[in-house]
């Protein structure tokens, strides 16, 4: 299918010479193909695999990134219950870059509702006291303002699920994630002393309950098992301000670096691979990405990907 669209790009070059008859013929052919296979347009291959948008406004670059991927309608259908999973792990403010930028989250809520979502839920299972994290990260207020539900993690919504992972066979998962029609992952890019970096795949530790602190003994495998289970339809990596030391909490402004960037894509492994480059780390050097790639969960060779980079 990719070839088909690549050929289309060649006629774009010759557009000036194209005749009206050819054009009509193309349209007829296209209509015919669509009749045969209505999913054709739904294939996202015509859009880049990854987009990397840079700009001053976190909300604007998020919206631009989604637009470049074909708009939120590519991911969210009318009437969907969408759950957005930011990182609200710590009792820290946005300037400390320990939690996802609230404006990025807000933009995604707006886009999801705009695409016809019936309900948008934003939640995380924080590490510090949950009310403090929800408030001080700015995420609860921002998401509510945009019309999302922002529930606290309710232990009665935990249910043991068969993760069928290599290591994690079953674990307690918040049912919001299981019951939602679409999952959007909105991590922030930070350093971590065990997985080296924490981005999209590590973010799933916030969608589960149980003794999360025991997962660290085989963290890479846990991250892969969880990511494969949750399968987000879209991952938006907030790299507006990243945490370059003292992760995953940071603290001082000097622990952060302003990149004014978001990365978005469906391939969550690729998004993390792209994120690794912000820290001058080769994705191949991150064991969890390597294993995820070997398991066929996603691409880590960025050269193989169609990446669109823009500044707005």
């Amino acid at each position: 299918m990719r070839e088909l669209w690549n050929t289309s790009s060649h006629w774009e070059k010759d557009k000036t010479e194209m005749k009206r008859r050819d054009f009509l013929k193309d349209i007829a052919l296209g209509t015919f193909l669509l009749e045969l296979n209505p999913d054709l347009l739904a294939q996202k291959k015509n859009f880049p695999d990854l987009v990397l948008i840079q700009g001053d406004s976190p909300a604007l670059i998020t919206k631009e990134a989604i637009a470049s991927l074909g708009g939120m309608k590519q991911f969210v259908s009318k009437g969907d219950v969408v759950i957005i999973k930011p990182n609200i792990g710590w009792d820290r403010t946005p300037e400390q870059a320990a939690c996802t930028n609230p404006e990025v989250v807000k933009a995604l809520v707006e886009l999801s509702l705009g695409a016809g979502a019936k309900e948008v839920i934003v939640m995380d299972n924080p590490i510090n006291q949950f009310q403090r994290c929800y408030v001080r990260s700015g995420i609860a207020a921002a998401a509510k303002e945009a019309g999302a539900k922002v529930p606290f993690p309710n232990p009665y919504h935990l249910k043991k699920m068969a993760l069928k992972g290599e290591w994690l066979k079953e674990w307690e998962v918040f049912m919001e994630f299981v019951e939602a029609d679409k999952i959007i992952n909105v991590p922030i890019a930070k350093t971590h002393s065990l997985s080296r970096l924490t981005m999209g795949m590590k973010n799933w530790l916030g969608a589960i309950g149980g003794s999360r602190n025991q997962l660290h003994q085989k963290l890479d495998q846990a991250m892969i098992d969880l990511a494969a289970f949750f399968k987000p339809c879209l991952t938006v990596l907030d790299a507006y301000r990243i945490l370059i030391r003292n992760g995953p909490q940071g603290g001082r402004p000097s622990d952060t670096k302003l990149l004014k960037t978001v990365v978005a894509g469906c391939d969550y492994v690729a998004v993390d691979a792209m994120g690794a480059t912000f820290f001058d780390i080769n994705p191949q050097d991150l064991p969890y990405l390597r294993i995820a790639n070997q398991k066929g969960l996603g691409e880590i060779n960025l050269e193989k990907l169609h990446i669109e980079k823009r500044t707005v």
Partner: protein
Amino acid sequence: MKKERSKKYRLIQALRIVSQAGFFLLFFYLFTVTHYSGKDYIGQVETFFHFDPLLAIATSIAFRAVFVAFILAALTIVVTFVLGRIVCGWVCPLGSIHQFFSFIFKRTKLLKPKDKQNSPLSWKYYLLIFILISSIFTLDLVGIVDPLSLLYRSLAVGLFPALAHGASAFLGFLYSIRLSSLGDSLTQFFEGLALNSTFRQGFFIGLIFIGIVLLNISRERFWCRYLCPLGALLGLFSRWNVLKLKIDSQKCTKCKLCTIHCQTQATPFPDESWKSAECVYCFTCAAICPTNAVSFPLLPSPPKMAVDLSRRKLLLTSLLAVAAVPFFRISPSTKRASPKLIRPPGALPEEKFLQKCVKCGECMKACPTNALQPALGEAGPEGIWTPVVTPKIGYCEYYCSLCSQVCPTGAIKELRVEEKIKVKIGTAWVNKNRCIPYTLGNPCIVCEEHCPTSPKAIKLVKIEVLQPDGTIKTPLAPVIDTELCIGCGICENKCPVVDDPAIYVTSVGESRSERNRLLLELIKQEPDKKDPDERKKRNEKTDANFF
């Protein structure tokens, strides 16, 4: 003769009940809002305590200085001078609880009041004397029996945690029968209350309270009559009050209903036996009198001393209080700091802290992580029920200073958040015999990950661990920079070695103490003074290792 109850006094009685309910609800409201609710700074939720002259006087004597907020207690004293123990009858929330339950017990015939009640009203005066005399010798025991402290502590540590567990069970039931939406809204309600549900001694503190309430089966307002030292103090202040009971002998039928139903054994009949210092001005006698014979005219008549306090017993009590002071100090806590005695940030040095802390539990209610627990033996007998950070239950939240803001006596000095994060309450230690990397050779960086300081006080170093099969693993293992560690205890709280964490905090190094220090800290300061950049460099080096 016309048989008619006084409309005026029945109205006053109704007003009194409204007042009691209002003040109780105010107390209760201030109690329920004492938690993190989205703002770093909480308002004056502890104000109720500042109107308590017993706390004001006892802590001021013990501490040798008056905490400014206690100025408000002067108002209570002035009111009592003029109107007697009206505060007991119209305001005190614990008094209202006792009266409510006395009423219930009367209605259920558990309590059958008699007209002859000769129980010694003097107990509470001796208790008061004991507390005040021991305060002179810096032994501050007032919090154990002060009615406001008692009530707050019982609610915070005993009753509300029980409510939280009950609610949790109920919610579990709702979810099990698939009433999830009802469950969700109830969950939201309880999340809003932010109840701390885990307390050591919660059971006993709750039991003591229930016991005190059950005493009302024996006598109406038992606590207020015989035990309350605040009531005793107000009784002493009330000697010159102007509201005096008078029985119109023309109308009186000597039915003794007034005395039978007197809430505090002030024996209104006959009126010359009426004890003005015991009367709480509930006006039950005037309202219940079938012939409207009882009234309270303004009479600046000569005072009637209510209770006979024998001079010998007073002397004996005083001697007992003096003797109690060294007795309380036998504990080793005065000799050597207890490792488990981690005080909340802002707590005064231990000696001063004990002189001020009234064990009210306000800090325990405010703590967002349930970290503050009532002490049992850590602080010696006089420190019972004082707050202790207990990392196994909760940790000290880095950017939170609520406990210091709500302390009614300044035993925990009020701190701004930016001041609080610099306060060291203890030091973390790694138990290498239990730590996963040190013993098993497996990776685990949980303590380091949670360490809130920047740069982190827990560093990771590569170590070699011999495996049972003779091979060597080289995991990263935690090492503590005692200079950076503030002792918050999140490492201990989150350590995956759950039963007895492999990293733990002890009180050594706490900023408030001059003695409980690490010698190493003093040595370490030297190179920093010479080269302030050196430490910075060292930390950056550690950070760089992550990449």
